[in-house]
């Protein structure tokens, strides 16, 4: 069995294992074992990737496998990874692993919960390893639909509304995407010959520019909906706020990255002319996401809403960087996806833990938690500092790279938007520090909270794993950045060839 397919098979085996479990304890142990193996496997994939490169393998994608599936349509089960997908796989591995521990105490229908959660993660892994547009789309949809049940059954607040809104908006996005992908497919053989869904093969041909101009908006917005592109971001705050902890983690941490990844790998890579020509319009939309999300976060009082809006802002920055169409900015976009994925997963995990104790998420009702819950509070501060871009943590590396890359564009339009986007850093600092002040410092507002207990072992594990990952990116970004830079080469070649 090849090492990439294992990333899909391990979750399936885990799900089958869970089906036979009787009690909640068994279920979570099976889930934890399965996802630990999955984490090791995804780290091993990264290691194997680096080793393969060190041995001098310069192929665009490594570990490729290709099996024919639907001969009529020339659909293949084609898999392979480069540095970008390897990094995303590692991110997904970390987040799903910690997600299992963050939902350790789920009581109601725990079997169904873990099955849906792991199914979701399977979709994400499958998406990142796919080289075939059909397979990719299939996994994308598999990743979206369990969300409905996860939020609807185990969520809180106006969960039914949020679940429906999220599912419909994401499926609406995938409707746009479908048009884009089929359009690309039917133009994948301009000189005659068999049509193909294979990304690598499509990237070698040039789709006519007028077709690209038609397809790019569908593809970019289709993925952009998942990446919280303004004005299609409205599912995100409601969805994240209503979702149970692990789902918020996985959704904000990983699922939204599908959008950014798709925008880079499909929309920009396969439709480069249109990306260049239309980028100004979309820069406006993504720039709005960045600023609007940050400003929105200031106004919120619910912890989850604050982080949901902050996710809109940060994921907007990813799409913003993709549209800058240069190597540094692309690199920044990938780093930002990794950084935001880890940081936001940590945020949502901590919010879940705090909510589990205080039973409120209103920042004005809490205060002084630093004295009562020192471990959780310190983790929260670290997540906050990473989010506002403190050097030494992942956020700084990512945002710095993005802004340096964005500023390399010499047009006035780009520069104005870059400066506006940079201003969001200040706003980020405002809302992060405001929450830290209200939530963690100051006097204890509710005396009942004095009896709360600090983190249990599984909560500590979640926090520590995520913080280590954030710190690794923050302190030693170079190996990661090199890995990504190498893999950006084909995309850059494609872009420069048309200029």
């Amino acid at each position, binding site marked *: 069995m090849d090492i990439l397919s294992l990333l899909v098979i391990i979750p399936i085996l885990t799900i089958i294992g869970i089906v036979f479990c009787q009690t909640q304890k068994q279920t979570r142990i099976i889930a934890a074992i399965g996802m630990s193996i999955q984490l090791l496997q995804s780290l091993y994939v990264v290691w194997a990737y680096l080793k393969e490169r060190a041995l001098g393998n310069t192929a665009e994608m490594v570990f490729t496998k290709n099996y*024919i*599936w*639907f*001969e*009529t*349509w020339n*659909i293949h089960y084609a898999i392979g990874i480069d540095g970008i997908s390897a990094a995303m796989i590692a991110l997904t591995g970390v987040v799903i692993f910690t997600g299992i521990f963050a939902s350790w105490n789920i009581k109601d229908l725990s079997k169904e919960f873990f099955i849906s959660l792991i199914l979701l993660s399977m979709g994400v892994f499958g998406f990142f390893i796919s080289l075939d547009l*059909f397979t990719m*789309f*299939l996994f994308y*949809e*598999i990743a979206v*639909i369990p969300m*409905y*049940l996860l939020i*609807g*059954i185990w969520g809180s607040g106006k*969960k*039914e509304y949020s*679940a*429906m809104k999220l*599912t*419909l908006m994401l*499926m*609406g996005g995938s*409707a*746009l995407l*479908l*048009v884009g992908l*089929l*359009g690309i*497919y*039917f133009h994948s053989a301009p000189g005659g010959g068999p049509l193909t869904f294979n990304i690598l093969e499509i990237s070698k041909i040039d789709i006519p520019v007028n077709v690209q101009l*038609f397809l790019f908006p*569908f593809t970019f917005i289709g993925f952009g909906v998942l990446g919280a592109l303004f004005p299609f971001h409205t599912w995100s705050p409601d969805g994240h706020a209503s979702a149970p902890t692990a789902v918020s983690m996985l959704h904000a941490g990983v699922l939204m990255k599908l959008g950014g990844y798709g925008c880079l790998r499909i929309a920009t890579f396969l439709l480069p002319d249109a990306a260049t020509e239309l980028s100004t319009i979309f820069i406006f939309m993504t720039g709005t996401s960045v600023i609007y999300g940050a400003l929105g976060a200031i106004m919120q009082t619910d912890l989850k809403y604050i982080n949901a809006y902050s996710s809109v802002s940060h994921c907007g920055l990813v799409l913003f960087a993709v549209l800058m169409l240069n190597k540094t900015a692309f690199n920044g976009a990938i780093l930002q996806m990794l950084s935001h994925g880890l940081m936001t997963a940590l945020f949502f995990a901590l919010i879940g833990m705090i909510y589990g104790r205080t039973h409120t998420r209103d920042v004005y009702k809490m205060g002084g938690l630093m004295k009562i819950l020192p471990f959780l509070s310190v983790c929260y501060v670290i997540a906050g500092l990473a989010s506002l871009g403190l050097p030494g943590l992942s956020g700084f590396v990512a945002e710095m790279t993005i802004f340096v890359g964005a500023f390399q564009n010499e047009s006035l339009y780009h520069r104005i938007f870059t400066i506006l986007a940079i201003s969001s850093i200040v706003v980020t600092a405002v809302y992060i520090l405001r929450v830290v002040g209200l939530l963690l410092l100051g006097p204890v507002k509710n005396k009942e909270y004095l009896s709360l207990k600090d983190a249990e072992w599984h909560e500590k594990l979640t926090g520590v794993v995520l913080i280590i990952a954030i710190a690794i990116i923050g302190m030693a970004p170079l190996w990661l950045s090199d890995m990504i830079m190498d893999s950006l080469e084909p995309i850059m070649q494609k872009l420069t060839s048309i200029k």
Partner: protein
Amino acid sequence: MNITDFLLMRHELLLTAMVLIMLLIQIFTSNDYNASYFAMALFFIITVFGFVPSEKGEIFGNMYITDSLRVLMKNILNIGVLIVLFQSGEWISKPHNEGKRYEFYLILISTLIGMNFMISAGDFLMFYLGLEIASIPLAALAAYDKYRTKSSEAGIKMILSAAFSSAVMLFGISLLYGTCGTLYFSEISPQINGNILQILAFVFFISGLAFKISLVPFHFWTPDVYEGAPTTVTSYYSVISKGAAVFIFIILLFTVFKNLISQWQPIIYLLAVLTMSVGNLFALRQQNLKRFLAFSSIAQAGFILLGIIGTEQTGMASVVYFVLIYIFSNLAAFGVVSVVSEKTSKETIEDYNGFYRTNPKLSLVLMLGLFSLAGIPPVAGFFGKFFLFSSVASAGYYWLLFIAAINATVSLYYYLLPVKAMFINKNDTPIEHIQSNPTAKTALIICVVGLLLTGFAGVLFDYITSLSFGI
């Protein structure tokens, strides 16, 4: 008639034999309690025998045509009917059906014979004969629960609309005869040159057939009949009757009317948009699950048209493949609805609140069925719908594709409503645990296996493509 001819027409002949056998058994037995088991056993044998490979050929001087594609279509219908028969066990064993159990199967199988003749027809007379055999007994089936007013109403509505649509279609056929001087498909086809009378004939003919597939605006009978008829009969309407009509529709469009392509493409375009949109919009507000599935099946018919408009080999393959998947999906949904309504006579979506807590397995089956109808992976519906969408894109109709994709999203909303009721909504008095009849269980298992396997079976799709043809 020699053995080769017998093999060529084996579907129809075996079914006729089955009808006769059951008629004889009925005469010589006093108790009809075992009718359903006889029917299932006999039909199972026929279904298996249907898969024997056969030759291509014509008999009765070209009035009856058969080839691998038509045999495949009949086999697909057979599989569907087999599942319907398995589902019928529960309902037919009820006391109010005492004394008319054999008749149910006699009538049901007769309609299937008609449909098979429709598919194999080589001329319009044979086609019309098949159509009438298929539609008149259907009305009797709708009125089978004669103690319920709604069932009788459904019967009347069915027979009136069937008569009306047949009349319209017959008018179309007569005009066609007037212009071509023949009823044979193979002789009409080259004579079609797009003169105004032929276009008129075509429009009348298509309208008549559109009644059977319940395309908008010919769909008004559908929800009432679906709601009124016994659930087993409704599931038969929604998959078998519709599937057969779709098969003949695509064959005729691709052979007889292929010279009118520039006329029929816009018509199909319009019908597809209307059918998808109206079906979806009306389904949004339905409370009764049978009405809900009726509108959903209208919307699905709209999606099926997408494959036809592509006019390519892959388009026809997608339609056949989709109908197969649609049979599994819709019968999974109807199977659960039928089990529940027979045991508890509860049919509204609200009644299903909290259904998962008491009946997890049935809920999962219903969920898979609905997801497949909505086109969500990993169940088969996703693949079926994706290929239909691909066929539209292959013809370059990107805006139609866009409308269809948006419609698929809208449909997701209402397909999620029963799922929400079963899994999310709380209920103090949920439907208690249901112990379903073993045959009904078998039917559901076949559906679920079909749903999980047909999608991933690339070989199956390639096989269907190899049999299909385009214009």
